[in-house]
């Protein structure tokens, strides 16, 4: 069946699903950067001891699901979120919802996501798509990272909804429960909430597992990778860092550019000139992340690889940690209601 769902491409899947789903209940003013900022999406985490795909467990963004949740919480939109133990009930629930003309967000694994190129199909279970209709046996899919909509057979959709392993989706679907009028004032308040949350997650947690401390910690670790892991594995680790930072979904520079765009757009709701200045700082940080990626590439391509080259790489991250710490400190000093 047809409905009026409108597909809009975004850099990151969860931003896109959130923005596009909220549009279906009449919230039209949220852009991808606003959604990302209100969702306090900017992050850095480096989990010790754990490995993902035989490389370091590093992420540049908040835990999957949080961006949608924080947006709806901050804007007072009630959310329905369901997981399923059986494939039959998962399909039945989805069908009923879609037949009533209501699109839903779906968490899926990408390993069996047939329309993805083979090179991108890892066991990554936190991809988000919107299912917005059904024609015969095919579900109509809006994957926000793609330019156009696509479709999956019921078998293909079931397989990705019930992918197994870390962050297994267990058929999870979610959607805003009812229409809601969201005023500019509500968005303005949500922006402040999102920024405060992001300040806390990036600078308020002790230890060096998350936030700017973790960026610094990773910078120091990188300097030791050459001796500790050997040239080849160190190169693989750096390649993994670059993929987490630059791969599809990040908008470039480890989400830093999206965050800079968010601060610019926030200025329309809060005319504080500091926002524009701090936006520039995040652009600068994103640029250094990309310079670091170029340095890393020199190492994993085998073009360079001396200890001095690893030191340069590590120093980039130390520099970024300092810049971002100061940027968040500047954000925390803004007087919102004066």
């Amino acid at each position, binding site marked *: 069946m047809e409905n009026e769902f409108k597909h809009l491409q975004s850099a990151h899947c969860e931003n896109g699903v959130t923005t596009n789903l909220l549009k279906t209940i009449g919230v039209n003013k949220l852009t991808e950067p606003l959604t990302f900022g209100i969702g306090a999406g900017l992050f850095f985490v480096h989990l010790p001891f754990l490995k993902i795909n035989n490389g370091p467990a590093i992420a540049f963004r908040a835990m999957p699901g949080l961006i949608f949740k924080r947006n709806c919480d901050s804007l007072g939109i009630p959310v329905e979120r369901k997981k399923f133990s059986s494939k039959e009930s998962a399909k039945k629930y989805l069908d009923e919802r879609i037949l009533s003309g209501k699109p839903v967000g779906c968490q899926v694994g990408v390993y069996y996501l047939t329309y993805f190129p083979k090179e991108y199909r890892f066991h990554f279970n936190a991809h988000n798509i919107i299912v917005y209709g059904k024609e015969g046996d095919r579900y109509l899919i809006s994957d926000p990272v793609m330019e156009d909509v696509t479709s999956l057979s019921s078998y293909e959709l079931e397989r990705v909804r019930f992918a197994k392993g870390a962050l297994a989706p267990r058929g999870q679907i979610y959607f805003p429960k009812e229409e809601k009028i969201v005023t500019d004032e509500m968005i303005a308040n949500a922006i402040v909430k999102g920024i405060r949350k992001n300040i806390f997650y990036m600078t308020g947690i002790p230890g060096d597992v998350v936030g700017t401390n973790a960026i610094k910690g990773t910078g120091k670790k990188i300097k030791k990778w050459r001796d500790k892991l050997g040239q080849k594995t160190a190169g693989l680790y750096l390649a993994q860092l670059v993929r987490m930072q630059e*791969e599809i979904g990040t908008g470039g520079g480890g989400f830093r550019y999206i965050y800079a765009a968010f601060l610019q757009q926030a200025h329309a709701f809060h005319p504080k000139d500091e926002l524009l200045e701090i936006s520039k700082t995040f652009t600068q940080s994103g640029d250094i992340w990309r310079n670091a990626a170029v340095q890393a590439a020199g190492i994993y391509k085998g073009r360079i690889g001396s200890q001095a080259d690893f030191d340069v790489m590590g120093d980039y991250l130390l520099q970024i940690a300092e810049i971002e710490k100061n940027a968040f400190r500047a954000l925390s000093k803004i007087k919102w209601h004066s």
Partner: protein
Amino acid sequence: MKKEDIPQDDGALNKLTKEVVYAVDSLGNYSTELSTGWEIKTTALDVAWKDIEQRIENARQKVLTNEASPILFFMELRLMDIGIVSAYTGFWKFTIKQHLKPAIFRKLADNKLRKYAEAFNISIEELKTMNVHGE
């Protein structure tokens, strides 16, 4: 990143879509642009896949020299670790480690082999012989 610096290199993703990136114009204002890819990250992905291919080949050799059962080969081929194999088959990790031993693998009943075959999306015959067709 400035608009004119957005890389338009080739990459695997290009088969599917261009991707959205954020960049500033000459006035410093952000907007979205499309990019076909960036050589730096294409190489990062290539490096990861070369490593995977090496791991698959090492696993194949281990099976041929009787150091491991074919489960190891398919585990690498399907980019899985023991945790993921455990989630798909329902076997405990400890049990899977036992099944990785060739002598124990050879005595496995068909109902257990079937669970592995399903997890790897192959037939029992393919599981035993490491000959795999298709996906």
